[in-house]
């Protein structure tokens, strides 16, 4: 065991003063093994997702509870789950997977407001938050709270209703979990005098501000053309059945979580190679052994950057 350790991991006479794992043949074997393993992963995912897939525990109920906790801490009224907004969120999530985009606005120019209106929700205020690559509800909420623009959306007093969609799929080449949050407030004007003049809000006849990062739509009625709106009655919100929530809270628990396994294996290989290279530098320097080889420092710089990329790319993102 001791000899094995020395031979494979440390510069020694037995391995010509270069850890066996850093020899050309070993590097080739490791590289080919990784390529083979990636094809094995793809094959397994296609064959049986109960073995290898994406495991997550994000659900609308928990997201709602956590959002309302944050709001109540600031003395704001809690939001109410709205099935129409949840439907809009599901439509938006499906559209993102079908058209393969990660943005508030689709490549064909479709805005979030289209999905909200299509779901039958007539809003006065509406907003949207997106998240991907998070595997638990608290992680999603914390990421939104850490972003000032998303935080502003979540804690806005302008909203009364909320709807979530959690969907798993391949987005821009990445197997991920997508969370769409639609926020809204609808108040129907009942003043008879203005009823004929109040039309469905559109971009041209109302003031609309769309922030590129948060995509908050704030609609204000045209100020002087219309009489002052006297009575505003909140519209009754449809309740959501438990079964509907369960569908939205689809949870999958495969034996191995693919994104986490990929990250851990890739990071492990890089860390082992980096440690071997650093140990190699130290031992060769101490023993003053002359070798005709490449510079270890080159490889250390190269693999360190790759390790940093892996660690950063596995973090979830919000939009």
């Amino acid at each position: 065991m001791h000899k094995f350790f020395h031979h494979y991991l440390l510069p020694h006479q037995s391995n010509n003063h270069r850890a066996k794992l850093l020899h050309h043949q070993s590097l080739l074997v490791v590289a080919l093994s990784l390529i083979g393993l990636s094809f094995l992963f793809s094959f397994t995912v296609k064959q049986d997702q109960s073995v290898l897939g994406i495991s997550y525990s994000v659900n609308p109920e928990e997201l709602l509870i956590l959002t309302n906790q944050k709001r109540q801490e600031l003395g704001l009224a809690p939001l109410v789950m709205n099935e129409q907004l949840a439907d809009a969120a599901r439509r938006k999530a499906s559209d993102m997977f079908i058209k393969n985009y990660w943005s508030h606005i689709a490549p064909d120019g479709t805005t979030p407001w289209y999905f909200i209106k299509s779901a039958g929700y007539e809003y006065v205020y509406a907003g949207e938050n997106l998240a991907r690559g998070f595997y638990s509800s608290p992680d999603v909420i914390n990421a939104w709270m850490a972003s000032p623009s998303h935080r502003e959306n979540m804690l806005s007093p302008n909203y009364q209703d909320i709807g979530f969609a959690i969907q798993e799929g391949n987005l821009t080449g990445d197997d991920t979990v997508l969370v769409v949050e639609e926020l809204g407030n609808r108040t129907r004007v009942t003043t008879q005098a203005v009823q004929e003049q109040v039309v469905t809000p559109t971009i041209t006849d109302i003031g609309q501000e769309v922030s590129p990062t948060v995509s908050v739509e704030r609609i204000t009625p045209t100020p002087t053309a219309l009489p002052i709106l006297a009575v505003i009655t909140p519209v009754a919100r449809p309740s959501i059945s438990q079964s509907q929530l369960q569908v939205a809270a689809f949870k999958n628990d495969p034996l191995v979580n693919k994104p986490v396994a990929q990250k851990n294996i890739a990071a492990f290989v890089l860390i082992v190679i980096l440690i071997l290279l650093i140990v190699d530098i130290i031992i060769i320097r101490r023993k003053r052994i002359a070798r005709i080889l490449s510079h270890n420092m080159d490889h250390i710089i190269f693999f360190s950057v790759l390790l940093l990329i892996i660690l950063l790319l596995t973090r979830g993102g919000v939009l």
Partner: protein
Amino acid sequence: MIKKFNTHRGYYLILAGMQIVGFVLVINAGYDKTLVFSYVVLSTFFYMLWAYVHHFIHHDLSTKIVLEYMLMGVLGISVMFFFLR
């Protein structure tokens, strides 16, 4: 080691600079995995090319060194291929 680093300081700085540029490009590519992988391959290519130029200038470029950088590059690309696929 420090003496060697000082001797090749310019070389290491250029290499680190190239890798940082590659890193920034990858991070800007965000979740577009095809683009990320393309930048990684490009970055690896420049890492190998610059190493060959450096060893050629210092008159110690040998088949063994060529092969070693090539295999390190292949290993880096394989790791990223596995991670991104």
